[in-house]
């Protein structure tokens, strides 16, 4: 197979790449997908899925510790190796699931590292000794954790972890420093603190989970602090030095303090995988480690497209998949609508869970909307009480004039499973009226979504 030609070649098999490949096959194209590592990319192997497996272990452990509250007795204990093994097994299972899907759709999976060279319709793709050509080439090479080597903020094989190392911990740290309080940082803080690691989270801006609504950030910080997690906000890690343990110099509020930790997790952002693939030889425009694209993922180089994390935030699997589908449908001559970034839900699977879609209150006001805000606390919901999860909030933001649902923000048990309801409402462009008319089943957590909407219009029932 020294020279092969396809309708479309996709580089990278994460949730952007493999979903695009399947959609391309459905559209009748001859598809190849190039992967240097395991099928499924970071999401399945080193991201979304294995962390959810770890967090599930943490949740069950937490419940065991609180078994008494449910009238149960349990002898709570854990085996870190087995927890990690479960997570790895699940990743493997899903990766082989992707392999099956590729086979089912007759997609050629090509193992190896892809490089681009100038070509006719689209750049040529060189994998080892093979040259692959296609009318269209889609880059879906993803992203990785950002590191800053001059401050010592890079993995050292022992003390300092990125998400990838933190996912396969050799030991349960006693004193853990998490740098960065975005979704990744908070999920690891949640996991390790659940198993007793004394955890400190450092965040550069003045509140944790900076992408979320400020009210949700504050509630999250309170919930974590109640379980013993310490936060340093408006703080900066100047340097970390490793010896027998880690010494971190942290600057906060004009004061510098030096603290000792036995492990550090870096969650200080994401950089795109743009290196060594010949992007510069074919003329791909790269800005701050991300490929610049238009609304249909076109790079400006004929026949070359880029989707997913590689193209910038939000760095979310479901964003990558949707972008890929839109890209390939456009290539196939269909008429898809560009992705509306504001309608992409974001979920953080820490305890308590956080989920949101659309504008935060501050963003809505900044965009010039007159807003109506609804709030409903978990404490007012029968199901939440029955579950033993009375902490949390559902907040909804409407445009006062049009009744458009501008945003929804939730914190508490299972909210990551609830947010899709508001996402559908936004996609269908319902106003408060349809949400109020919708019958929510009792008793469920979803009733809080209804109540929050009612509250925005001063019609709330249960508070």
């Amino acid at each position, binding site marked *: 197979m020294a020279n092969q030609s396809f309708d479309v070649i996709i580089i990278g098999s994460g949730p952007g790449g493999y979903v695009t490949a399947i959609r391309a096959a459905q559209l009748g194209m001859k598809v190849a997908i190039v992967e240097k590592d395991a099928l499924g990319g970071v999401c399945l192997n080193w991201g979304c899925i294995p962390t959810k497996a770890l967090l599930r272990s943490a949740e069950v452990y937490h419940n065991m510790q609180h078994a008494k509250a449910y009238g149960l007795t349990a002898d709570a204990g854990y085996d870190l190796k087995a927890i990690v093994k479960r997570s790895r097994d699940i990743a493997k299972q899903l990766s082989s699931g992707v392999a099956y899907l590729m086979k089912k759709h007759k997609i050629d999976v090509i193992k190896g590292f892809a490089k681009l060279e100038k070509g006719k319709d689209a750049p040529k793709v060189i994998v080892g000794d093979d040259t692959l050509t296609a009318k269209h080439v889609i880059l879906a090479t993803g992203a990785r954790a950002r590191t800053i080597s001059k401050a010592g903020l890079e993995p050292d094989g022992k003390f300092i972890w990125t998400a990838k190392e933190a996912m396969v911990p050799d030991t349960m740290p006693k004193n853990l420093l998490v740098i960065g309080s975005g979704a990744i940082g908070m999920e690891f803080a949640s996991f390790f603190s659940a198993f007793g690691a004394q955890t400190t989270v450092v965040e550069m801006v003045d509140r944790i989970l900076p992408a979320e609504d400020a009210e949700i950030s504050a509630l999250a910080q309170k919930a974590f602090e109640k379980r013993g997690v310490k936060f340093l906000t408006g703080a900066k890690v100047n340097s970390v030095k490793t010896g027998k343990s880690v010494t971190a110099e942290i600057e906060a509020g004009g004061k510098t303090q030096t603290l000792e930790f036995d492990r550090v997790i870096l969650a200080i952002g994401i950089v795109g995988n743009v290196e060594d693939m010949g992007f510069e030889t074919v003329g791909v425009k790269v800005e701050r480690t991300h490929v610049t694209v238009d609304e249909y993922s076109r790079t400006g180089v004929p026949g070359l497209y880029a989707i997913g994390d590689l193209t910038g935030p939000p760095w979310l699997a479901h964003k990558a998949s949707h972008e890929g589908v839109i890209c390939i449908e456009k290539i196939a001559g269909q*008429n898809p609508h560009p992705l509306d970034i504001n309608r992409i839900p974001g979920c953080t699977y820490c305890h308590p869970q956080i989920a949101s879609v659309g504008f935060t209150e501050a963003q809505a006001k900044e965009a010039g909307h007159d807003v109506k805000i609804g709030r409903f606390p978990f404490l007012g919901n029968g199901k939440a009480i029955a579950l033993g999860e009375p902490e949390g909030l559902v907040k909804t933001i409407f445009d006062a*004039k*049009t*009744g*458009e649902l501008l945003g929804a923000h939730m914190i508490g048990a299972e909210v990551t499973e609830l947010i899709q309801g508001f996402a559908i409402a936004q996609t*269908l*462009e319902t*106003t408060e*009226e*349809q949400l109020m008319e919708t019958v929510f089943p009792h008793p469920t957590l979803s009733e809080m979504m209804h109540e929050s909407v009612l509250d925005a219009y001063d019609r709330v029932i249960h508070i």
Partner: protein
Amino acid sequence: MPIEILMPALSPTMEEGTLSKWLKKEGDTVSSGDLLAEIETDKATMEIEAVEEGTLAKILVAEGSAGVKVNAPIAILLEEDEDESALDGFETGNSGPKSNAEPAARPDESRDPSPEESSKENGAEKERAEKSLSNAESNSQPKDKEMDPVVQRGERDSDDRLKASPLAKRMAKDAGYDLSAIKGSGPHGRIVKRDIESFDGAKYAPKSADKPAPKADADAGTDVGPVRGGGANYLEKLGINPGSYDLIPLDGMRKVIAKRLVGSNLDVPDFPLVIDCEIDALLSMRKELNTQAPEGVKISVNDMLIRASALALKHYPEANASYTPDGIAYHHSADVAVAVAIDGGLITPIVRGADNKGLSTISSEMKDLASRARERKLKPQEYQGGTFSISNLGMFGIKEFGSIINEPHGMIMSVGAGEPRAVVKDGELAVATVMTVTLTCDHRVVDGAIGAQWLLVFKRYIEQPITMML
């Protein structure tokens, strides 16, 4: 492989059509863009263009065939390197739903609604012609707009439900847009937020040349342009610098005027009828009445016009009608709306049951309604509804003008100034006071003959005003 040429859909609703003429013969070479044939529907005649190149190998549907179903194969094209042997064993009907031909952007030239048309038959034709016009508009980019089901204009279900998101409906309502004029870009032509935001009301206003007669839009000073999207920078895009004008925000009345009249201009196929009335007798009767009238009662010409038109509506009830999708409503009562100019707009208070009211009652009612209208103190039931309207610009010296129908009214009468004019009487030149009135009729309910006969009845009441007193 031979390429099938399929019967194209010239409009979203087209199911079949007539293949009226082949413009290529079997054996002709066809290049992309060549006109292949003429297709006729009940709405329009259009030419179809070749998309593929090759030789027209076989014509499957003969010229003049009616009832050809959309997507049925009508001819077979051979590609350059193929000869007729490629046709052996080739079965039609395998090329899927996509047509290989596209309609060319040319509506039927034969449409041209004549203002004189008066029979029901012609009225129906006019409606069709106007529909084909709107097709022509969307056909100007056949590939993107006509053939693509995603972007058809405000598509309706079989039950006539307009597909629009709740948010889009509310935004359209607030902006005073008629949803049926807006293209839906959502799934199955659903109208969504972005369609409202990008909607340019100006684009869908009928052009004056398409109307049966030039329109003055002079309805008591309500020269309302189409409702426009795009806000303040709308003018900037049209080359008018910001700062060179004052922008007064639309108040509620202005929005209602814009919405209702744009809606009327879009939906109502109207036509004008013009007649002269001599009013010397009317003026002298008015003078007499006013000398004899009790203190405080002063009958105006307008009051007499209200009474005359109400009596004419009663005498000729076919003209006292409203169009509804379920049928034509013939009203039992003659409720005459009268346009009153007020600060910042106009309003049309209604004299209800004017056919049963005497001149002095009409006069005092009208006086009260008009004065409260100027103070904006009318109750909604005093200006909503009505079955007919009168707009009088005679006091400004306007000789004649046409008005826009205010639905649900089937007709509106525009009254010009009464002035001395030379008339011919018994073969001699004479001077008479003449008033020109223009009756604008909704052709869906009032055909030319009905409108004309109503006008004759009205003219008789005006010219022999004593009959009004019966």
